[in-house]
């Protein structure tokens, strides 16, 4: 029976691939020809191969989940530690997403690597809407992009509005020096009245909140403070150090941008790992389910072929008897 099975398989190979050995084998068993056209025609080999590949995929996704989980733990601590950094600025300057200025720069933060759920397309969508919101006849808005993924998406429809793109941020672990040098480069290369940083704030492993932080240029801060409104309180503050108010506001705006960027980059990296973790978790679960179904199909087919063979033997025996 084992030989018969082997021959059958050889026959099947001959059908799918022009392997000379199998052709030879199938010619050795011409009687199989008719039988394989019957019930036993369902291939077990293909199902077995499929099962093997699904098992391998599951192994990979499980490993990726583990890696993401351990990276998340490390980065989460640092993201939480950096949260104190932007709060003083928000307490001082408030929150001004609705400010109406001429030159808007949208800083979109995304990841370099994929397989992390929807976080990159969320930041891209928010950035696009942000651009629609802030561009108009007498005002313009441009992009500064962090990370490969947002670049790949924004290049399609808004390549003319991209001013800078930055990648390979996460070769070493993220640190303040790195992000501040980066922030410095951005400030040197773009002209802005308002910088709008778009990122995913980490809430928990399954939830991220798309967030935008607004940083105003020193001139706009001064203008808005004089005009009253949200920044009206700023005039109540005494300025220590520096020769003039505009000088200290300039330093403050630069420092604010680097601090906000640092936190934003960390929060986004944290969201990335969290999203990757849950994406990999669900895909290894899916692979498991698929494997279960395949095993069921495989076993059924095997059982069916055994049953058919038994029936053949029995009916053959009874024909001899009769």
């Amino acid at each position, binding site marked *: 029976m084992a030989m018969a099975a082997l021959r059958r398989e050889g026959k099947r190979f001959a059908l799918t691939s022009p392997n000379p050995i199998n052709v030879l084998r199938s010619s050795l068993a011409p009687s199989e020809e008719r039988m394989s056209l019957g019930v036993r025609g369902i291939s077990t080999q293909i199902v077995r191969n499929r099962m093997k590949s699904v098992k391998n995929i599951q192994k990979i996704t499980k490993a990726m989940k583990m890696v993401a989980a351990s990276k998340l733990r490390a980065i989460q601590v640092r993201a939480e*530690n950096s949260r104190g950094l*932007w709060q003083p600025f*928000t307490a*001082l300057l408030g929150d001004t997403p609705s400010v109406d200025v001429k030159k808007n720069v949208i800083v979109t933060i995304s990841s370099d690597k994929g397989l992390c759920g929807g976080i990159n397309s969320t930041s891209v969508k928010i950035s696009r809407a942000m651009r629609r919101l802030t561009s108009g006849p007498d005002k313009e808005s441009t992009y500064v992009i962090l990370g490969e993924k947002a670049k790949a998406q924004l290049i399609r429809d808004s390549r003319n509005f991209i001013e800078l793109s930055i990648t390979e941020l996460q070769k070493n672990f993220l*640190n303040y020096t790195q992000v501040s040098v980066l922030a410095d480069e951005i400030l040197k290369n773009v002209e802005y009245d308002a910088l709008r940083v778009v990122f995913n704030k980490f809430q928990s492993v399954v*939830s991220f909140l798309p967030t*935008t932080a607004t940083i105003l240029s020193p001139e706009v801060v001064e203008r808005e403070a004089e005009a009253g409104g949200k920044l009206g309180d700023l005039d109540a503050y*005494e300025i220590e*150090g520096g020769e003039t108010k505009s000088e200290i506001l300039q330093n403050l705006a630069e420092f604010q941008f680097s601090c906000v960027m640092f936190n934003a980059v960390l929060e986004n990296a944290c969201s990335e790992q969290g999203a990757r973790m849950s994406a990999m978790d669900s895909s290894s679960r899916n692979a498991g389910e698929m494997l279960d179904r395949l095993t069921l199909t495989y076993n059924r087919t095997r059982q069916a072929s055994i049953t058919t063979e038994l029936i053949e033997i029995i009916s053959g025996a009874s024909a001899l008897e009769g």
Partner: protein
Amino acid sequence: MFRQATARLLSRSAAASPKARPFSTDLESAPAADQAFVDAWKKVAPNMDPPKTPLSFMKPRPPTPSSIPSKLIVNFSLPYASELSGKEVDMVIVPATTGQMGILPGHVPTIAELKPGLMTVHEGNDVQKYFVSSGFALVHANSFADIIAVEAVPVDRIDPTLVQKGLAEFTQKLNSASTELEKAEAQIGLDVHSALSSALSG
């Protein structure tokens, strides 16, 4: 395919429900914070929730009290750590560029740029000494003091021999500097090291 779609739907509804909760509390704490922004957002992207803004993640701070409180609330943050957060102290002395500046409860609201120097936190008889490299101190009217520094270390972690070495090195560098940039760098080096050595001796 169907299975995937339902899984996705499920995860989306699961993700949406915790999102809804902080939103409702936001409205309480900051009702008209950026209504203009939300309205404008709805016009350009009606199918998308407007993104959050940093203010909605911040713990609301109390209004300015009518009488001067007895304690000062200090937040001292570094990029890699929150050294002090919401701590009640008696006094903080920070190295402003115009000289050492003492902050007591009820201090006038101030924005102070910090230079490299010694920062002390006084709490009863307890005094903590930090050396800060640079940063800002923001004092608010409600006796909150936010201090942000790029680098700050407890004074006992500084190595005096390295400070003396650096002081000599940068004095020499300042004399040999040719370009404006080199000169400025050497000047910064000299400032930092002399501040370090005076922090160690004082």
